[in-house]
């Protein structure tokens, strides 16, 4: 016998279920006055640096129906490409920006919305810049383990072409599932980003 590794196993995932909002966005679900505000609801302060943008979209299932019970979380760098995290060793991130957001889809339309800023570039392991991106994490009833994906910006074509992750995706036609086009809605730069869990238009999900 060799020496045992004595490593623990990660706690197995389970679905967040249809009532994830009770725990993660209780005010939204109707459990009011326990927490003053739902976590991740407000990403911006007046002093946050960077270009204000909106990210909106819906999550679709394999028959083309929009999920009305999904929870989407985002994690992103600040406008200078720094993460507000103790793991960030390159400098100090904007103290006016938490980098984290959480949105329950609208209970009728399923649309999620984030009012945030456009992130700066963050380096890849070898130092090359990654194109600006936002990490998304999606949980819902019927999803047994949270799905990780990324949103890249449609108006960053040159950076996207050089991105070390996008550029090594074998099926080139699928890269477009990660890129959100820029539009103007209500005078606000808006990136529309629908997520398709299954089927022909299936979004790329990562094992990170």
């Amino acid at each position, binding site marked *: 016998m060799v020496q045992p590794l004595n490593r623990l196993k990660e*706690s197995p995932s389970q679905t967040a279920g249809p*009532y994830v909002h*009770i725990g993660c966005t209780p005010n939204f679900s109707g459990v009011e006055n326990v*927490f003053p505000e739902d976590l991740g609801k407000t990403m911006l302060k007046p002093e946050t640096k960077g270009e204000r943008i909106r990210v909106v979209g819906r999550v679709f299932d394999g028959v083309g*129906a929009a999920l009305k019970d999904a929870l989407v979380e985002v994690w992103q760098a600040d406008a200078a490409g720094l993460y507000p995290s103790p793991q960030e060793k390159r400098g100090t991130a904007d103290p006016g920006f938490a*980098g984290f957001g959480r949105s329950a889809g609208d209970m009728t339309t399923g649309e999620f919305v984030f009012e945030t800023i456009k992130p700066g570039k963050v380096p890849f*392991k070898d130092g090359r810049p990654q194109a600006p991106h936002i990490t998304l994490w999606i949980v819902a009833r*019927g999803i047994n383990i949270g799905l990780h994906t990324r949103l890249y910006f449609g108006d960053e074509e040159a950076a996207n072409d050089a991105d070390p992750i996008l550029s090594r995706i074998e099926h080139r036609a699928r890269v477009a599932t990660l890129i959100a086009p820029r539009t103007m809605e209500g005078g606000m730069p808006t990136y529309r980003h629908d997520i398709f*869990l*299954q089927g022909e238009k299936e979004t790329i999900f990562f094992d990170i």
Partner: protein
Amino acid sequence: MSGGSFYQRDRRWHPPAYDPGYKTSVTRSPQKALIALDNTLSELTGPVFGHDLLGPLDDDLIANFAKDGDPIGQRIIVHGRVLDEDGRPVPGALIEVWQANAGGRYRHKKETYLAPLDPNFGGCGRTISAEDGSYRFRTIKPGPYPWPNGPNDWRPAHIHFSIFGHGFAQRLITQMYFEGDPLIWMCPIVATIPDKAAVERLIAPLDMANTVPMDARAYKFDIVLRGRRSTLFENRMEGN
């Protein structure tokens, strides 16, 4: 703990995306393979929540929604530690919980089960793990709950857990079950987990040593998040 990339997730230990026994997963599971992504700073970092986030009753579900008395049900304490795969404590981890009341009824706009709401029970709580990784909640033991999957499927008593570690790659949502509940082994959601040993990791034992006499029984529930490689022999991250 600063350090390198996270140990890869064992996706044969976690439930697969597609499991027809849990019907909703049929149309909500990706059919294409996940694309492997070496951890970059985007995955190694994650949000940090300070204790200033917490109100004094956030970890006490018996008190945090009470209007004119305590909620009805079995008073319990749920406690344990957040560890990584190397057995090291994970301090500063935000833990959010949600659950049904003693009769299996959730307080949610879309919930229609005929068991009544408890006017003194909301069903949500949160806390942040201490330096040694420990955490605790006070609550009411949730009741089993019927759901429209099979014609007669009932969820075992369970508490949902959402945990933030130190990196977004550690993000995890799971469910805690209670020792001895015969519904555990009939449940299609539990059964999405392929390995019995993995299921057992989600079953909290009764903990008489930490039970408060004449007040509340205790259940112990440890949570393990992904471990992290040492950076000793890794390519240096930009700026490290």
